């Protein structure tokens, strides 16, 4: 299990749409929204590969300006989550 904290910057008018899309991705939790356009996201995944793929996917979403990584823990990569 790997865990990361991300900051997703959106176009304010697309915020709700992006939030909806994010909530459909397995392992992605919306923690909060700051300044009406920045979404604090916590992601759990089984591998770094999946984290990279998901974050790239988010970066490619309509209305997303950028996805940045604040925190990344991979001490338990390869172990399953309970």
């Amino acid at each position, binding site marked *: *299990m*790997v*865990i*990361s*904290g*991300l*900051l997703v*910057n959106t176009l*304010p008018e697309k915020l709700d749409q992006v939030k909806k899309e994010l909530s459909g991705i*397995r392992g992605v*939790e919306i*923690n*909060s929204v*700051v*300044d009406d*356009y*920045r979404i*604090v*996201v*916590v*992601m*759990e995944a089984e591998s*770094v*590969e*999946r*984290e*990279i*793929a*998901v*974050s*790239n*996917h988010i*970066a*490619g979403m309509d209305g997303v*300006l*950028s*996805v*940045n*990584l*604040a*925190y*990344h*823990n*991979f*001490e*338990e*990569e390869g*172990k399953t*989550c*309970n």
Partner: protein
Amino acid sequence: MQLSRRKFLKAAAAAAALSAAGVSTDILGLAGDAGADPGGIRWTKAPCRFCGTGCGVMIGVKNGRIVATRGDPQSPVNRGLNCIKGYFLAKIQYGKDRLTMPLIRKNGGMAEASWDEALDLIASRYSEALDRYGPESVAMFGSGQWTIWEGYAASKFVKGGMRSNNLDPNARFCMASAVAAFMRTFGKDEPMGCYDDFEYADTFFTWGANMAEMHPILYSRLTDRKMKFIHVRHVDLGTQVTRTSSSADIMILFKPQTDLAVANAMANVLISEGYVNEEFVSRHVAFKKGLQDLPYGLEINGKNDGGAGFRDKAGTVDFEEYKRFVSKYTPEYASRLSGVPAGKIVEIARLFGDPARKTLSLWTMGMNQHTRGVWINHLVYNLHLLTGKISGPGNGPFSLTGQPSACGTAREVGTFAHRLPRGVVMNPAHRAFAEKIWKLPPGTINPKPGYHSVEMARAFDRGDIKCLWVMCNNYFQALPNVLRYRAGAKKEGRFLVVSDPYPTRSTELADVVLPTAMWVEKAGAYGNAERRTQFWEKAVDPPGESKSDLWQIIEVAKRMGYGRLFEYNLAEYDGKMEKALFEEYRKFGKGAGKDLAPFDVYSKVRGLRWPVVDGKETLWRYREGYDPYVKKGQGFYFYGNKKKTGGRANIWLCPYAPPPEQPDKEYPLWLCTGRVLEHWHSGTMTQRVPELHRAVPEAFLSMNADDAAGLGIKTGDRVRVRTRRGEVTLRAVIDGRNKPQKGLVFMPWFDEETTRMANNLTLDAYDPISKQADFKKCACRVEKV
């Protein structure tokens, strides 16, 4: 995973992201100050291993392994955030195929060897070549990813020891054109401004730079500024629509090479519509005209066209002559060449010139990898100098860098074929200065510049260079027209050494492969694009017998009899070779506009921007009130040009010139190469996640929809791309993230599969002034297979 640990880590992740967004996490009562981790993680700082932005990373180590990373909240560059390439930091050191032992070619295969055996072999082959063929027969090709002391040690070894100037870095492929133009304009290299400019600029110009993907943290600073201030505008100029263009307010799509005409036409509008800052120009600007008809560094029937040893001849002209020169570049004329509507050129020139707005220009490879790269850099400086929008918060030309220490090591240490840590080898005073610091007999340093990147490969191919040591880069994939040079490296009588942490397209050609300690497996220092020098300490051990490049250089030097170059009383330097080298290196910049702080200072701070004078860093150079080298009353002072123009910056008269190869009947399309986010490390990473169908497992060919339709090509089809040099077979992507203009195709250069290597195709022409190759333009043909 224990639930409590998992909960803790999730809270820490949320707290880190929240605090990076400016929310104080104490108020929210969240646990997660990463420094107080009960899980036993020890945190240390380092600059990021990837791009030249130089973000701070906190590295979490547990049981001798890196287990976590965090954007460094104390770093002024990135304020707690990394881009998503930060995920790769978890992987770069722990790939299964890490090299752990030296390898020597024996009977056609590679056999493991001891360090002694490998180092003795290198030393004896280099010594033998020196004895028989002289210093021009030995070479080293280094890197903008070297630490500062590795580059410094390499310079001392090659120039002070072997008396050769055949030392060049891969940074020659990356920003040599920016360097040459900075030198010719300001007499000193590197941007005058700093990243603080992002929070002051009103208008951003990105010139052929896809910052959204290549410099994401800086791009976030740009978009943050736009979010907060509604008047802020962003103009993107390029040859394809990228993720950066899609968030810009104005997109200018020009035909390859015609940026030269567009920039001149903008200058024309600035002049004819009265946007010139007359006072600034009359006090601080001089006008220069060089040769107008330049070679392209091509070999024609085995003969160089004159690019290899080309030197420009500059003459001084006046403002009136410059005005006459640009008057030819009417918006209409530039429009005919570039395809940009004339009205658009006028519109962006007015936006640029608006005296009420601060203007920041940003660029990287699009301008630098250009057979007239120095010229296009000049043409952008010209706009800033005409309007006086330079050297102050929010105003300035800012060239970004692709490698973490392209500035700190390649440019500042000067690991180029003509450079010394201060000045150039051609200058007797500069040689004498280096000889004094290096304690060498006068006359030791060779006055003749060595082979630069492309010419180095040509000399190795011809056999003029017998021994080549490639360090910290992948030369035999990165070279343009690479097939020719790969064949050259395999010829009899060539001795190739490659130091790398991983097997690459270069190690496979080597006679000796040395396993290298990377990033935080050793102590290091990098310098980023805003002149910020940053240090880190060793955090973990390298695997197997891997050793740092620094150790490798010194060990070979010792075995060749140059040990005295690296003899220091280490007791004076806390036992650290790195400190001894840095303290010596610092002498070169002192009082010369490149003052650095003492070694120990950098261990504590999150980097400092040079010149560091009286303990204080410099945010904007050449400007009174910010730069300690500018006296009261001077306003601006371009002291790099003190001797030549009395401290004025130069506006250069640079015309439009066509590229050496253009589409024709046989090869009707433009080919542009570059990078995409996913392929920085490995395209296969995204391939294994079936639920996300947008993954791109390999290099692809990005096409314009009309071009594809004309050739009957759909997304996913296999296509063959051919140029006069070679071919690749790729899958086509139409209307993907990059949308090339009609007539242009784009492919990323990352893929190392030999049938998909971009440099099978590229042309090995280069800018004759900077000697930087053009990876952005050649003619190709595409067909469905």
